[in-house]
């Protein structure tokens, strides 16, 4: 997946990016590199200096930006930000090359410096540079001009630049999570749509407490969310537009509709329609609202998810006697079972890279999150507990977020790397479930 799908989209937050490639010598000559498969075993020491500023306000933004970058990189477990009190050189000007010897002594392999400059029109310019300490050369540098309140997104973009330069993989920090915020007793649970940055910052509600909502998912543009709501009584698939804050019911169907997901091109939604107890998978073209039936079987058929090229759909069916994973062509042809291990499989989600399918697996009274190849081979369990459910992929296909419930406890969001390491709770103010990771923001 590339950023190609992000093109031709309105910029969600108003800011301008000025790309200033500052005497970059290119990644080919770089000596530092982090392997995303093995990096957790030996995280790269990296020094991220508080960005300098011309006045106290700019200095504060500079410190905040550096703090967000450190937290992002630390959370990836591929990097180990060095504590600032170990720094020897004090960076006072961006134009002066750093004294690399001072950074080598404290074992820093990467060095990030930056500057926040207030502009006459009220905006700020944030410059940053990433150095390869051992090669003693700059790897990349960018300059962003933005409104002061948008500094967090710039910090995420810089984090993505660092991640991409040092791992060779696309980053995932300038992204958001839409999820279900939960409150109230279990027998009368209140479930509302909430959205936040991937690091838990800037959370806000999208829906009120009058109707229970479930299973939100982003469109590829990140501007639309599809979800299920009991707002009109029975389960119905809804669309929520983040630009207009308007929501609408998707189609007028005779039965319940649920488990919606966008196609990779954003033109269609694939979902389950249940009529008289028989659930079938349909897709609907959003422009014409014409619908296509993909399955036709008396068993449960639900939880469809497109492959990233849009040619196939993985789904959940109990036609074999227990819930298992099946793959079909996008027109419904060639339906075949792919999961054959012990246990019950559900909630399949195709990786944005296309190489894996994540799922929930029930076995021995426990719930696990795992991955397998699209042909069903290479199954690996990443994490398990009393209840782990509903995986969602980071846009680079390296991290999986899901929700976990303890016995008799509320749900919380967690993330785990594709390696099965780096299990972490995602900070939310309330109990939370059904996370969906956005693509990189446009």
């Amino acid at each position, binding site marked *: 997946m590339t950023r190609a799908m992000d093109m031709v989209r309105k910029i969600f937050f108003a800011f301008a990016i000025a790309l200033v490639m500052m005497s970059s010598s290119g990644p080919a000559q770089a000596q530092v590199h982090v392997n995303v498969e093995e990096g957790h075993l030996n995280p790269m020491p990296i020094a991220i200096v508080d960005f300098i500023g011309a006045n106290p306000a700019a200095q504060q933004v500079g410190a905040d930006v550096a703090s967000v970058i450190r937290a992002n990189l630390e959370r990836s477990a591929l990097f180990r930000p060095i504590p600032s009190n170990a720094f020897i050189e004090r960076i006072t000007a961006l134009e002066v090359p750093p004294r690399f010897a001072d950074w080598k002594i404290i074992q820093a392999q990467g060095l990030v410096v930056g500057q926040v400059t207030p502009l006459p029109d009220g905006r700020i310019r944030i410059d940053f540079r990433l150095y390869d300490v051992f090669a003693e050369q700059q790897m990349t540098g960018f300059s962003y001009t933005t409104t002061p309140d948008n500094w967090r997104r710039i910090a995420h973009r810089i984090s993505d630049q660092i991640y991409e330069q040092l791992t060779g993989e696309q980053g995932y920090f300038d992204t958001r999570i839409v999820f279900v915020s939960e409150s109230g*007793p*279990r*027998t009368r*649970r209140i*479930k509302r749509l909430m959205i936040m940055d991937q690091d838990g910052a800037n959370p806000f509600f999208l829906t009120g407490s009058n109707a*229970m909502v*479930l*299973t939100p998912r982003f469109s590829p543009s990140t501007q639309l969310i599809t979800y*299920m709501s*009991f707002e009109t*009584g*029975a*389960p119905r698939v809804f669309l929520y537009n983040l630009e207009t804050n308007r929501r609408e019911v998707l189609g007028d169907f005779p*039965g*319940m509709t*649920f*488990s919606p997901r966008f196609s990779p091109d954003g033109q269609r939604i694939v979902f*389950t329609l*249940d009529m*008289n*107890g*028989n*659930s079938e998978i349909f897709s609907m073209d959003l422009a014409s609202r014409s619908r296509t039936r993909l399955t036709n079987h008396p068993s*449960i*058929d*639900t*939880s469809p998810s497109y492959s990233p090229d849009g040619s196939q759909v993985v789904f*959940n069916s*109990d036609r074999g006697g*227990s*819930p298992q994973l099946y793959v079909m062509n996008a027109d419904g042809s060639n339906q075949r079972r792919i999961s054959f291990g012990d246990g019950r499989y*559900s*909630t399949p989600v195709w990786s944005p890279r296309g190489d894996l399918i994540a799922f*929930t697996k*029930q076995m021995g*009274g426990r719930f696990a999150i795992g991955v397998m190849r699209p042909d069903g081979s290479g199954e690996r369990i990443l994490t398990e507990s*009393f*209840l782990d*459910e*509903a995986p969602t992929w980071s846009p680079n296909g390296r991290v999986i977020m899901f929700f976990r*419930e303890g*016995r*008799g406890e509320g749900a919380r969001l967690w993330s785990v790397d594709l390696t099965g390491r780096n299990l972490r709770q995602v900070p939310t103010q309330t109990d939370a479930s*059904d996370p969906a990771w956005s693509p990189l923001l446009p």
Partner: protein
Amino acid sequence: MRKVLIALSAVAALAACASRPEATPTPDTTVGAATTPAPSGPTPGSAEDFRVSVGDRVFFGYDRFDLTPEARSVLERQAAWLRQYPNVRILVAGNCDERGTREYNLALGARRAAASRDYLVSLGVAGNRVETVSYGKERPLDPRSNEEAWSVNRNAHSQIVSGAVS
């Protein structure tokens, strides 16, 4: 309006009494109570009557939607009661325990609701009086996480939507 409904329901109750199948175990006292309201106990034809005297939930095995003999017996009482009060419309909600994933359970709950509805219809209740919905695992009756709670939370819940005596 409500008084009219009560009167109509009482007449319906008496009329239905004559043709009630012998197998229906609805207590005879409900009919008597319609003419001389008892100081305690649910008003015949009321939602409480349906819930307490008839039974408004049937229960299922794990990942099952087939009706047990007990479930059939409850649904037979529901059907008899619904024939007795022909103005009543119900919503059958399918519910699941927490030991399944959310979307699968929405589909499973729909099957449970449909199984209950189909049986009611086969017993002579007009199909347009019985709506169905699935709440999946979202509305547990028992909040605990143990076998006892799960067995209670796997149910189809018949709720009166309209037409009952208040």
